[in-house]
């Protein structure tokens, strides 16, 4: 049942003028603070925003100090990039996991064959690796699916506006242009990795800590709770 609430207004309230003056005080305070004082404006001038180079993966706080704009969230899904191995070749093995899981079907891979650097056999690698960023729904599933830490979306970049649609299709070289070296070990850690890490969990942590020399970060790694 509806309940009627009567609000009692005093004569002072009904004058409205005190309320008007108070309201004006609030808006004018904002006006003067934003015009002459320290600005409280939240607007990001998208399109006029010059990001510093290199991307702020190492020390976000220093970057934040320099820029008026605020840092994007740490796990912001930006433009894709392909990662490199220690020797500088592309990490991707063209396993097609990302292309398969992609709900938008925007990843196109053409596999080729090359000598494997770690064993004496041959391995697959992407001859062509294209992502149509206009079709991409930025879900991040490709990154989740990748077993090799070869594909990431951690560049913190929006795709810049393009004049032709074909310019939004990033090919292998463009994706590699922001490549970093992954901290995951080339060729994997062998079949008995789990036992070895359980045995030397402290050492494993030591190994997979963020590395300041050369490696980007350690957001991926074998993080397991110590089995009690």
């Amino acid at each position, binding site marked *: 049942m509806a309940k009627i609430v009567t609000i009692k207004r005093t004569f002072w309230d009904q004058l409205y003028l005190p309320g008007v003056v108070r*309201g004006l005080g609030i808006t004018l305070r904002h006006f003067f603070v*934003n015009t002459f004082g320290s600005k409280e*404006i939240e607007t990001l001038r998208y399109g006029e925003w010059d990001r510093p180079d290199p991307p702020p993966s190492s020390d976000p706080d220093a970057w934040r100090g320099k820029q008026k704009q605020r840092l994007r969230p740490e796990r912001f899904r930006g433009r894709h990039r392909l990662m490199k191995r220690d020797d500088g070749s592309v990490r991707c093995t063209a396993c097609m996991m990302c292309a398969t899981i992609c709900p938008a079907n925007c990843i196109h891979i053409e596999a080729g064959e090359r000598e494997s650097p770690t064993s004496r056999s041959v391995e697959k690698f992407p001859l062509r690796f294209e992502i149509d960023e206009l079709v991409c729904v930025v879900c991040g599933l490709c990154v989740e699916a990748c077993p090799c830490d070869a594909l990431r979306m951690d560049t913190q970049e929006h795709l810049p506006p393009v004049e032709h649609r074909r310019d939004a299709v990033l090919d292998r070289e463009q994706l590699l242009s922001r490549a970093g070296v992954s901290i995951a070990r080339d060729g994997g850690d062998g079949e008995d990795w789990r036992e070895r890490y359980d045995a030397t969990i402290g050492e494993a942590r030591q190994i997979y800590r963020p590395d300041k020399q050369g490696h980007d970060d350690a957001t991926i790694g074998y993080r397991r709770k110590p089995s009690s």
Partner: protein
Amino acid sequence: MLAILGWSLLKIVVMLGFAVGLSAVLTWMERRQSAMMQDRIGPVRANIGKLRLKGLLHPLADALKLLFKEDFIPPRARKGIFVLAPLLALIPVLLVFAVIPFGPPLCLDAWRTVGPDLAACRPEPLQIAHIDIGLLFIFAVASLGAYGAVLAGWSSFNNFGLLGGLRAAAQMLSYEITMGLAVVGALLVYGTLEPMELVQAQATLWDWGIVRQPLGFVLFLCAAIAETKRAPFDIPEGESEIVGYFVEYSGTRFMMFYLAEFLEIVFVGCLVATIFLGGWQAPGLADDGLRLFGHYLPLSHGVVVLARVLTFFLKVFLLCFLQLAIRWTLPRMRFDQLMRLGWKTLLPASLFNVVVTAGVLLAAQAAR
């Protein structure tokens, strides 16, 4: 004869240049100021090459855009009236500036002397038209603006336009009464209808209308903002949801309505400054120089006049700023609230103000 013509032209150029220029700046100020109040940036992108001036070029860009837009007249509109309506909205607002004094009487020959004998040199009042019934003229002409709104809504063959026009008519009629009565108090105090004499009577801060007539000032400001048809009284337009009387207008004709609205803001600023804030009088600035707290700095006639003209323009600017601030602070009223405020609050209050003022004056007269 030639001198009269020259003076008139010069004064028209100064006054209308100020009014139209300020109203153009106000279109920018409205957006930037509201942006600053709401922690936004506002429009800053219009540019000529590298020149941006914080977005001050936006009025220029807007005017260019509106001039080149299609001039659309709805097929079933009353064409003659449809074309006439924006003019009827714009011209009265331009006319009322004629009697606003933007500076003291000027003796051009004696501009170097300190405190010249003004009676000796036939001074030129800095006011386009010196009419004894100046304030009556203002109210008579300003109320013509309602016709613009009503006819615009009526002639455009649009139900929303028609309703908007009716709302405009009802609102402007209601608030004009309060506006007129609020001024009556000031008229009783100063005993003149001529704006220049009104300003001259407010020589010291103690004589300013806002001190002598505080209630009249509030009532007048309220009613005047309602006359400009802007928030919190923007019911005739209500651009965001209740469509207004100029829905069918586009291009240059729309620009005329838009310009008229901003000119009205300037006009209200001028009127409030003239009647209640001492017009071109600045506290401490006398005819022969600056007299402040016992100190005296002699200034020549020309400098004093220039300072007073600038004072007036500054006052008008600040009042425009205040109006914009009010517009971006208060939410729009409902129509019945508007009518109740107009007829049941403001009107009795203004009548009360008139009676009390008259009574006090009578008592003062009897005591003398």
